[in-house]
């Protein structure tokens, strides 16, 4: 188990290096420099600015000095916010996005698993069709449609909930969380329903039922595990999806989170910010995928065997 984790960890390193290098050169290749402005910037000023940000050095030198800084945990100064380092900016935006992603994830897992299990336990009845149809809505109505519609209804017509900001007015975390989490709740609901169905048809469940165990015990002790496995495997990609989903949700609700900064940095050609956030996000995604892989192997004895034999 440990070696499996270690091996996967080591495998992630080349991925990260590719990400860093590719982003570094891609960003430099982009048209539109960071210092262009409407009021003409005289060449001496451009030179001075470039010197301050080391842009006048040959590109390989810039790359190596960037990697050097990275190893020391420094993402460099932001181009757009001259007084701030990218570290500071990430620190400012990260707690918000993390909170949003966490709440959305909790919502998705809680509602998804419970409705999926509920439906899976009574297949082909109304208790199955209703949640599954609702979950279909959750999958097919994207967040950038659901969000504004909820804003329109709850925020503007009904005036029940605030429609922008995060942490400024009480209740302003509700709509963004729902918008982000709903789609994933729907997907998780279907996944766990499928998982439960597969497990319930297994022989060992029939044995347990024949043994006369009460329903609650069967569900919580045996079936749930089977129902959770596909969900856990999904959590890794779900996390990546939540991060990118946060771009849209943060834009709609004007939330000062890392996702919105990333999109803005891309538009502003803030090289260091783009690089920093890309690397940061990528690392998070890789770590999460790794964790979810490890946990699902641990949960599912079949996969465990597979990995042991597959080397």
């Amino acid at each position, binding site marked *: 188990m440990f070696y499996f984790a270690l091996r996967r960890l080591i495998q992630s390193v080349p991925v990260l290096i590719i990400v860093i290098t590719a982003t570094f050169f891609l960003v430099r290749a982009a048209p*539109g420099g960071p210092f262009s402005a*409407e009021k*003409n910037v005289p060449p001496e*000023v451009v030179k001075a600015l470039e010197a301050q940000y080391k842009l006048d050095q040959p590109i390989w030198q810039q790359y190596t000095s960037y990697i050097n800084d990275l190893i020391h945990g420094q993402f460099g100064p932001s181009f757009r916010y*001259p*007084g701030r380092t990218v570290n*500071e900016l990430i620190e400012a935006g990260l707690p918000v996005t993390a909170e949003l992603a966490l709440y959305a994830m909790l919502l998705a897992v809680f509602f998804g698993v419970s409705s999926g299990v509920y439906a899976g336990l009574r297949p082909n009845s109304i208790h199955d069709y209703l949640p599954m149809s609702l979950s279909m809505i959750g999958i097919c109505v994207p967040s950038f449609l659901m969000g504004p519609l909820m804003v329109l209804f709850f925020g503007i017509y009904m005036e029940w909930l605030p429609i922008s900001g995060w942490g400024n007015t009480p209740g302003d975390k509700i709509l963004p969380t729902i918008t982000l989490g709903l789609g994933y709740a729907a997907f998780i609901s279907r996944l766990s329903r499928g998982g439960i169905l597969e497990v319930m048809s297994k022989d060992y469940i029939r044995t347990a039922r024949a043994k006369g165990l009460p329903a609650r015990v069967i569900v919580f002790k045996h079936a749930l595990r089977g129902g959770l496995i596909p969900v856990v495997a999904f959590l890794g990609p779900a996390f990546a999806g939540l991060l990118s989903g946060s771009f849209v949700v943060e834009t709609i609700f*004007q939330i000062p989170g890392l996702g919105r900064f990333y999109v803005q940095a891309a538009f502003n050609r803030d090289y260091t910010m783009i690089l920093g956030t890309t690397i940061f996000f990528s690392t998070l995604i890789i770590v999460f995928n790794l964790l979810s892989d490890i946990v699902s192997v641990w949960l599912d004895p079949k996969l465990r065997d597979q990995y042991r034999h597959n080397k």
Partner: protein
Amino acid sequence: MDNLIKSWAWLLGLILITFLSIAGCTKGQSNVEEGNIEGILHWGNGTDPQELDPHVVTGVPEHHILSALLEGLVAKDPKTLLPIPAVAKEWSISADKKTYIFKIRKSALWSNGDSLTAHDFVWSWWRALQPKLGNQYAYMLFPIENAESFARGKITDFSRVGVKALSADLLEVKLSNPTPYFLQLLDHYSMFPVHKKTIEKFGKAHERGTLWTRPGNFVGNGPFILKEWHLFRSIVVEKNLNYWDLKKVSLNGIKFHPIENVTTEERMFRMGQLHKTASVPIDKVKAYQKNNPNLIKIHPYLGSYFYRFNTKIPHLNDKRVRKALAMSINRQQLTDRVTKGGETPAFTFTPPDTFGYSARAAFEFNPKMARDLMREAGYPNGEGFPVTELLYNTSEGHRKIAVAIQQMWKKNLGINITLSNQDWKVYLDSVNNGSYAIARAGWIGDYVDPNTFLNMWVTDGGNNRTGWSDPYYDDLISQQAPVSLNKFDRYTIMAKAEAVLLENMPIIPIYIYNSKSLVHPSVKGIEPNILNYVLYKNIRLDSTLIEKEVD
């Protein structure tokens, strides 16, 4: 299994109750109500400020904050925009209008108690002109003798630059030419004083982005001091007790909210979260004018929305073509139906009545004459006219205008235009490099004088970018106008230049900007003017006003 249903129903009920109770709790006191009682102004400030170093920033949001934290020698009267004393108690101007002597108030102090002296200004302007600092607004100081040479690195001895401290409270400034608008320039943030000891404590003078601008470190001489700076969330300033005019300051503080999205900002205003917005969504203007006319403030703004021509392109090199294109745009329809903000259609480049200067309108909306011109130029009914691309920076507003104009040109002239939009930075590069045919542009005047509009178009001017060149124009703007001592003569020279510009039409003026904002009735002291200039110490919040329902 029924237990499952019951437990689910319980859970749902619990959630519903929590939800509703949280929702119920949102009807607390709004920012505006609280602000009126505490004397805090909630100001919608558009984009998040990059920095708070006046020698590094370039934007309007930064300007609003810096005008609270710092003060220049001279300020402006919010109604007339004429100069009024600020740090300088009084000043004298020599007969040849090239030497100014400012007497600095003895009561002028920095926020940490230090005295503000003429030496502070000399040092600050030295820093602003430092080539290594890369100050994009250094050009504001160029009317000063030798300032430009120093900024370009041609001379390194600052004592040759025309600013000198004659004593602790007397500042002498020598200009290269009589510059009638010089007093206005002093109110721009690039000419504000900065605190030498603080800056040098945190780094070298030419270093960007040191910690001197953080709350707790920032030392300024304005009516407010920097209290909090939450990245992307808000900037809070509070009353500076060492300010020389403290008695006049009614506000206790200002909270600047960076809200980029115009629609969100308007909603926040409606919910009572803001006293004043930076802008108003286009589609709401008419509704406000009809239902809540006391809340919406619209007035002309010193800026021009125009299109540039790349005159190096063969078929655009013909001024008949350019004039035809200019004459076939129905500007009234544009401002009525597309921009809907009541903007003034522009038939000159400099906005009319710029401190008394009004150029003569040189053309009008005349599709028939436009067609005649096109025929003369060799494109009867648009035949043979190459497909031309219109470039604009990505924005809904610019797109709407471009689409409308594309249609007008098709309908009136029979020519085909394609549209292309690029992100801001890419678009700027394209225009700078001449990789465009026709490009949308906007220009806000830095000060109220036709020069800020007209000196763009001199040959190879940094802001020209059209490739158009006319030696007579250059002579009028760069040689004759600057040495003129008489306002009327000077304006006549500039009007002649503008006539040359409009006769050749390297640009198409489209409309004069409008400033639109929503202001809560409890805010008193904001006067409409063409620079959107606000004097914070004039503002007071009327807390006796009953909260009215905003529709």
